[in-house]
């Protein structure tokens, strides 16, 4: 076997292709809907000012209550209760939240075209001694066949590239349309879900209200205690006695007036 030889054949072609291409996008958006029902009740209308002042301090330290928006909030199953010291109001809120999903689609057909000059090279191998039957003639055929294959590959690649560029160029606009459709759908679904959840929240408000009133009344009881004890101190009361048993707190004192 002598030194290998090779034959190179350069092949060129003019590519001119046109086609119609569909560009489509699907966008999925996630959101949430909340149904809310609330009622406000005045504590200030009934409670004395000293008790209202003491209530702030009680809620500041009472477990489960946390400062929020200038008031105190206690979260509950399915809602919360919020005391607003500035107005002396108790806000009882039932809330139900659910996930909402919407899909938007958009597609369009665009025309694509590509025109280009392709140039490739085919290679064939042979040996001087025609080893293995590889002669210069077979090498030339091989080189031509190789060049034809390369030309076809280059053609396919160029068209795919053009299609991809068209897809990318049009994809942004199509995706924006799909997102717009998804947003509209999400808004519609959220509104419908919210309306349904608000009806459920309204039904739940009674139960949340019962829990809320127990919680605030417990705090008011402590505010009563603090208020009356502060009063006793201010009057230099004697025999101040605070006791508790069986879930009942008793306060007793005597004073001269």
């Amino acid at each position, binding site marked *: 076997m002598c030194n290998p030889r090779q034959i190179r054949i350069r092949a060129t072609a003019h590519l001119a292709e046109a086609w119609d291409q569909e560009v489509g996008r699907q966008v999925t958006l996630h959101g949430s809907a909340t149904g809310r029902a609330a009622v406000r*009740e005045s*504590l200030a*209308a*009934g*409670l*004395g000012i*000293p*008790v209202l002042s003491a209530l702030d301090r009680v809620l500041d330290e009472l477990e489960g209550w946390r400062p929020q928006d200038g008031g105190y909030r206690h979260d509950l199953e399915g809602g919360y209760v919020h005391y607003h010291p500035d107005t002396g109001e108790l806000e009882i809120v039932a809330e139900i939240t659910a996930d909402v999903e919407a899909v938007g689609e958009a597609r369009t057909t665009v025309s694509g075209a590509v025109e280009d000059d392709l140039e490739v090279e085919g290679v064939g191998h042979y040996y001087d001694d025609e080893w293995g039957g590889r002669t210069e003639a077979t090498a030339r055929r091989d080189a031509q066949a190789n060049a034809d294959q390369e030309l076809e590959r280059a053609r396919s690649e160029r068209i795919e590239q053009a299609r991809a560029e068209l897809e990318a160029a049009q994809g942004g606009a199509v995706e924006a349309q799909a997102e717009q459709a998804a947003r509209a759908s999400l808004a519609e679904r959220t509104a419908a879900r919210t309306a349904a959840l608000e009806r459920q929240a309204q039904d739940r408000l*009674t139960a949340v*209200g*019962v829990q809320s*009133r*127990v919680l*605030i*009344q*417990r*705090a*008011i*009881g*402590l505010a*009563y*205690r603090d*208020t*009356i004890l502060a*009063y*006793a101190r201010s009057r230099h*009361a004697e025999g101040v006695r605070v006791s*508790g048993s069986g*879930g*009942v*707190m*008793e*306060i*007793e*004192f*005597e*004073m*001269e*007036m």
Partner: protein
Amino acid sequence: MRYRVQLRIREDTGEVELFQVDTVDADPRAAGHDAAHNRVAAEVAGLLENDAIIDEVAPAHIIRQPTVYTPQAEPEPPRQLPETHGA
């Protein structure tokens, strides 16, 4: 005049079971006794409630606390006034 103040609160509900102001060692027939007693009872009650209703249960005064804050979903049953053994 000397007064005794008693307050009894349920810890789980905050309900006031008893709020009572008695005179101690005072003659209920003395001039101005009732007026002074009323004034003190109103002062103490006013700390807790704006429009406390003051009931007299001879010979003492009981401040009835009808409802400081009335749950609307489940109205409380009528409150039973406690007996008093005051002055």
